[in-house]
């Protein structure tokens, strides 16, 4: 199983007596692991002497005075009540610290799916994400591993990571402060992952994924969620997004291109005429699972579904965005088209409009077909070491899922 593999790797490295040289010198004297970062965030904040910047509900510094994030509007008493009821239902569903979750999931998967599609309550999001991604199990099965990776291992990617730290969500208060808790935990998670999987290492884009996670959980939890996603704890592994040659990005773009032609033929034709291909606008959708390019409140709702239902939702949301703007897009020439594909209108960014549209688009079967087609055209990636590894991991997943329930007690 993958985690055993990685622990073996770790073991070997430990035996090689790796130095604990920390390139990030400024960090040396600071408490390294910030497992209690929620509290720290508040502390740092209060310690800061400067007037706090105006931020939205998620902590992003507001550009304009009234930049609507779709959620800052004051809520009516009715909405408030409804939200409270929703939270109560969710609490019941997951139990204390997630204790009832697996049972509920087995009994009523469709209820879970429906509720997740409506959005996980923000106050429970971090916990639920860990439950549905399988990362909680990984964490429990691998005590001490994260600490080991962060403190004792060195990574070839350290300088690359440092270069990007202040360029990841630079408008978020948590990540803004130079060497502040946000930047430190982001560095730690990315470094730990780059050691955990040296073949992937660090790739630009991972920072936005890790950053999004860190706003909802501790760095150790975020690390394991990253592992769960890239190694495929519940769904197909996604490390191909970041491997040399970005093989999975290439495959997804191929699939998306075809899906556009299937579902929105007129637009597909227009794209061909204007010589626009999905690489020009959608590569970042896949590479960061929308955490880079969409407003945060919408990205979160997509992530709720993504973690439970798999990458299909990225295709669906992508198609829904194009569908929503279809009648405008088909009229635009190249340059305006590119611009429009990067700056979707405000009203398209409402999750309660966009997501139901996305859910209604069926892609599963076609995605499978297109994957086969892609593999035929481009030579099965499985000839390579990488794909073999992915397959092994897939098998491990099956085993993992079968032994579900036992793990948590191990």
């Amino acid at each position, binding site marked *: 199983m993958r985690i055993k593999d990685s622990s073996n790797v770790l073991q070997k490295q430990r035996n090689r007596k790796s130095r604990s040289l920390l390139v990030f010198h400024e960090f040396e004297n600071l408490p390294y692991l910030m497992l209690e970062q929620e509290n720290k965030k508040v502390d740092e904040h209060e310690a800061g002497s400067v007037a706090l910047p105006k931020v939205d509900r998620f902590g992003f510094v507001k550009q304009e005075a009234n930049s609507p994030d779709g959620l800052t509007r004051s809520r009516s008493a009715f909405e408030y009540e409804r939200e409270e009821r929703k939270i109560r239902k969710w609490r019941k569903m997951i139990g204390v610290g997630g204790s009832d979750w697996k049972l509920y999931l087995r009994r009523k998967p469709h209820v879970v799916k429906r509720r997740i599609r409506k959005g996980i309550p923000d106050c429970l999001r971090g916990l639920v994400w860990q439950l549905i991604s399988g990362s909680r199990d990984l964490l429990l099965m691998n005590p001490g591993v994260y600490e080991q990776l962060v403190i004792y291992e060195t990574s070839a990617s350290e300088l690359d990571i440092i270069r990007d730290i202040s360029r990841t969500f630079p408008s978020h208060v948590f990540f803004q402060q130079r060497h502040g808790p946000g930047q430190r935990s982001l560095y730690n998670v990315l470094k730990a992952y780059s050691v955990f999987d040296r073949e992937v290492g660090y790739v630009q884009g991972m920072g936005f994924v890790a950053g999004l996670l860190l706003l909802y959980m501790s760095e150790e939890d975020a690390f394991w969620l990253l592992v769960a996603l890239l190694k495929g704890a519940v769904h197909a592994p996604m490390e191909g997004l970041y491997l040399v040659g970005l093989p999975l990005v290439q495959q997804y773009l191929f699939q998306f291109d075809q899906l556009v032609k299937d579902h929105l033929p007129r637009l597909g034709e227009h794209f061909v005429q204007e010589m626009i291909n999905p690489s020009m606008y959608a590569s*970042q959708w896949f590479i960061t699972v929308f955490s880079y390019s969409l407003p945060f409140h919408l990205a979160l709702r997509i992530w709720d579904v993504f973690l439970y239902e798999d990458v299909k939702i990225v295709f669906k949301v992508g198609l829904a965005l194009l569908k929503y703007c279809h009648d405008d897009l088909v009229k635009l020439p190249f*340059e305006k088209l590119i611009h429009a594909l990067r700056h979707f209108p405000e009203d398209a960014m409402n999750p309660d409009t966009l997501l139901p549209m996305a859910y209604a688009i069926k892609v599963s079967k076609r995605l499978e077909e297109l994957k086969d087609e892609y593999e035929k055209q481009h030579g099965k990636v499985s000839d390579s070491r990488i794909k073999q590894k992915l397959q092994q991991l897939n098998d491990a997943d099956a085993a993992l899922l079968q032994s579900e329930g036992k793990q948590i007690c191990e």
Partner: protein
Amino acid sequence: MASSGNKNINSKLVLLGDSGAGKSSLVLRFVKGQFIEFQESTIGAAFFSQTVAVNDTTVKFEIWDTAGQERYHSLAPMYYRGAAAAVIVYDITNQESFERAKNWVRELQAQGNSNTVMALAGNKADLIDARKVPEEATQTYAQENGLFFMETSAKTATNVNELFYEIAKRLPRLQPAPNPSGMVLVDNQSPSERAASASCCS
């Protein structure tokens, strides 16, 4: 700006270079006149456009700003293929970024499109005290390789507009055509070019 009788041309331009060299910052300075201290890293690629007037011609640059990390290399060809101009950016305080720049030059040269105007930009020229890449040696390198070279600073705006202006001046279509009938369109492979020029040039 463009009065009747003026020529309008569109030119696809691509920015290449190591991550953090300042590609996005140069574009932002050129297109919006801004500089952001903590510029988000570019994922995939980003598109911008800006016009430059050279004598009686207005050159509209259609700019692709690419992601610099080596891992993204496989996405780059579609942006430099058919480009009329390529700006290869390095950071004068980072020797490695200069080595990356030289690799890009080699790669573009290997593509064999001799019509592409290639410019080398030694960015972050404001950080003179931290300089690692000497200016004179680079100048020599640039001359040997037929590159137009300038040190720039996206931060202070030094040489940014100048860089793009000089590139515009060097575009083959702004040069007197020695043999009009045999002239090859610099961008004859460029999708955007064809699409866009059809809609705006007469």
